[in-house]
C-alpha cells in the first residue's frame, strides 16, 4: 500500500535551523506518533510530509515517489487539523465531499463514501448542519470524516485532541484507534501528550530540538529509554532520576547517592557501569518499580529504609514520596500500603528496571534488557530472571 520515508531531512527558516538531519522509515499501515515538547519540530516535520512547508534539504518519499516538489494536493494525503479547519459556509456533507468534488468524483460515488464515513463516525444525523451548529467533538469527527472519504495513502493528524476537554479526548482517542484498525491506513500523528503517544502508536518517534532522540514501540520507549529525556517524558509520575556516583563494592558495582546507602547494580548493568566507576551518573527507577519490602521480596533486590514525606492516595493506588539522600523519590504502591508521614518504610528496588544515564551526554548506559515480563507485586518472589 504505502510507505513513507524521510531521508536526511533538514529544515531552516533563513539562518535558523529547526530540523537537523532526520531519517525515518514508516511501513505501510503503521501508526506513527511524533511526540515531544513544544518547539521540538514535530509539527514542522509532519507539515513537510504534507507539503505545507518547504523541505530545505533531504528527501521525502510517499508510496515510492519523491514528493519534495509536489504540492499537497498531489501527494495523496489527508490531514486533520488542531482547530478542525472546517469550511464554515459549507454543510457537513459539503465539507466531507469537497475533496472528492475537486477530483471530479461521480456524484453517486461521492454520496456513498460520505454516507459510509458518516455512519462510521456516527455523524449521519449532522450531514445537513453548518459547522457553527456543531460541538467541538462533533466538529473533530467531521474533520476526520473529511479525511477518511479521500481514502489517502497517508493520514496526518496534527494534535487533534488538544482542543477537546478531558472526557471527549478519551472518546475521540478511542475512535482514532478504532479508525486505524478499520482502515489499516498509514497514520502520522503529532502530539505533545505522552499518554496519547503510548496508547495510540505502533511506534513512537521522540523529538527534541529538531533531532530524533529515539524511535521505538511504546514498550521500548517506556522500558528502554536511550536518553534521559525519553525516560522523563513518559510515565506519570515520571521516572525518578537521582544524581549518584558509581563505586565498586565487595561483590560488584553499586550506585551511591549522597546520604544513602549504596544500591547494588544487577550483573548486566554492573558490566556496563564498569567504565563509570568513580564518576557521576544519573540513576533512574520508575515509581511502579519500587515495592514494599516484605517476606516475599527476592533476596537479591536492594532494600532501603526510607523516610516517608508524603502519602497521596490516588484511589486505585497510593503515591508515596520519600526522602532519598539530598533528593526525593516517588513510589507507586497498593492501597493497603499507607504508612504515616514521618515514619520509615522498607522499600525494595526492582533491579530489572534500573536505568543509568551518563550525567553529561544524558545517554543511557547499559545493554538492552530482554523485554521484561509484567508481574504484580504479590508474586515478585518467583519472577526475577535478572538478579
Amino acid at each position, binding site marked *: 500500500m504505502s510507505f513513507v520515508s524521510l531521508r536526511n531531512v533538514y529544515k531552516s527558516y533563513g539562518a535558523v535551523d529547526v530540523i537537523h538531519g532526520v531519517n525515518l522509515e514508516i511501513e505501510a499501515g503503521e501508526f506513527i506518533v511524533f511526540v515531544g515538547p513544544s518547539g521540538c519540530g514535530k509539527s514542522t516535520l509532519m507539515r513537510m510530509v504534507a507539503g505545507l512547508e518547504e523541505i530545505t534539504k533531504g528527501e521525502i518519499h510517499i508510496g515510492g515517489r519523491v514528493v519534495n516538489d509536489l504540492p499537497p*494536493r498531489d501527494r495523496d494525503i489527508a490531514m486533520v487539523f488542531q482547530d478542525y479547519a472546517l469550511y464554515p459556509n459549507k454543510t457537513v456533507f459539503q465539507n466531507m465531499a469537497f475533496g472528492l468534488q475537486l477530483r471530479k468524483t461521480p456524484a453517486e460515488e461521492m454520496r456513498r463514501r460520505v454516507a459510509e464515513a458518516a455512519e462510521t463516525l456516527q455523524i449521519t444525523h449532522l450531514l445537513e448542519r453548518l459547522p457553527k451548529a456543531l460541538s467541538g467533538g462533533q466538529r473533530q469527527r467531521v474533520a476526520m470524516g473529511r479525511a477518511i472519504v479521500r481514502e489517502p495513502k497517508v493520514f496526518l493528524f496534527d494534535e487533534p485532541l488538544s482542543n477537546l476537554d478531558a472526557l471527549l479526548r478519551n472518546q475521540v482517542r478511542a475512535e482514532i484507534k478504532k479508525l486505524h484498525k478499520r482502515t489499516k491506513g498509514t497514520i502520522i500523528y503529532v502530539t505533545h501528550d505522552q499518554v496519547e503517544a503510548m496508547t495510540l502508536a505502533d511506534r513512537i518517534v521522540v523529538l527534541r530540538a529538531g533531532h530524533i532522540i529515539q524511535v521505538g514501540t511504546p514498550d521500548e520507549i517506556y522500558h528502554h529509554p536511550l536518553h534521559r529525556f525519553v525516560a522523563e517524558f513518559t510515565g506519570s509520575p515520571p521516572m525518578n532520576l537521582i544524581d549518584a556516583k558509581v563505586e565498586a563494592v565487595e561483590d560488584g558495582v553499586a550506585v551511591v547517592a549522597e546520604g544513602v546507602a549504596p544500591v547494588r547494580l544487577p550483573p548486566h548493568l554492573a558490566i556496563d557501569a564498569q567504565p563509570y566507576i568513580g564518576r557521576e551518573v544519573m540513576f533512574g527507577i520508575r515509581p511502579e518499580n519500587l515495592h514494599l519490602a516484605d517476606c516475599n521480596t527476592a533476596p537479591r533486590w536492594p532494600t532501603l529504609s526510607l523516610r516517608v514525606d508524603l502519602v497521596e492516595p490516588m484511589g486505585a493506588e497510593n503515591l508515596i514520596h520519600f526522602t532519598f539522600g539530598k533528593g526525593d523519590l516517588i513510589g507507586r504502591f497498593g492501597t493497603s500500603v499507607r504508612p504515616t508521614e514521618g515514619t520509615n518504610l522498607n522499600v525494595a528496588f526492582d533491579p530489572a528496571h534500573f536505568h543509568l544515564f551518563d550525567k553529561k551526554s544524558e545517554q543511557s548506559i547499559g545493554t538492552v534488557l530482554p523485554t521484561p515480563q509484567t508481574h504484580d507485586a504479590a508474586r515478585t518472589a518467583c519472577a526475577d530472571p535478572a538478579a
Partner: protein
Amino acid sequence: MTPRQIKTLRSLLFLHLPMLLIVFFAIAPYLWMLLTSLKDESTLFTADRTFLPDPITLQNYVRLFAKTGFISNLGHSFIVAGGAVLLGLSVSITAAYSFSRYRFAGRRPLMLMFLLINMFPVVLLIIPLFIIMKHLNLLDSHLGLILAHSTFAIPFATWMMISYFDVVPKSLDEAAQVDGCSPIAAMIKVVLPVTLPGIIATGIYIFITSWNEYLYASVLAGQAVRVLTVAIQTLIGEYEIAWGLLTAAGVIGALPVTLLFMFVQRRLIAGMTQGAVKG
C-alpha cells in the same frame, strides 16, 4: 420622586436629549436641503416664506432631469465609482491575501508604504496626476478618473482586506490545499466566501468615496466626463445660485450612498455573527 422616575429623568436628560441634539445637528442640513428642493424656487426668498413646503412641488426635479444633463452626470458617476470598485477590489484582494498569508522579503516595508499613502491628502497628488494623465492621454476619460480614484481606494482597501483575511485561520487554506486546491483555488473557493461580508463592505466604502469625490473629478475631467459632484458645482453660478436645481441634485446625489450605507449596516452585522472555524 421614586428612584425609577429619577432614573428615567436622568437617562432622558443625559442620554436621549443629547443624542437627539447630535442627530438633529447631523441630519439638519440634509433635511433642510430636502425641504428646499420640494419648494417652488420663487418662494424661497419672499417675505412670507414657510418652513415646510407649501405647496409641495416636484418642479425642481422635473427641471433637473429635463433641462440639464443630470442623467448623464449620474451615469458618469456610476461608471467611475463602479470602475474604482472593480479595480480597487481586484488589486487589493490579491495583494491583501499575499500580505496576510505569505512572508516575503519587503513585506513589512510594503505594508507600511500602503499605510502611509493612505494618509496622503489627495490634493498632494493632483499636479503629478494631471501631468501623468496628460502624457497618457487619459484626461477627461473614465479610465483616467478610475485610475485616479484608485490611488486612494487601493491602499485603503488593501489594509481593510488584510485585517479581514487575518481573521480567517491559515489552517483553512491548508485544509483546502490538502483537499485538492491549488493556492489560488483555495483563496477563491474557500477564503473569499468566508470574507465576503468584508469584501462587500470594502467595495461599498470605495464606491461611496469615489462617488463623493470632487477634486480629481473636476481637475482631471469635467467636459466629456462630468460626474455628479462637478455637475452640482456648476449650479452655483457667478452671480446666481440655482437653489431649486441645486437642492434637488443634492438630494438625488446623496440617495445612492445613503441607501448603500443602510445596506452595508445590515450586512456587516450579519457577517460579524457568522462564525468562522472553532471560534
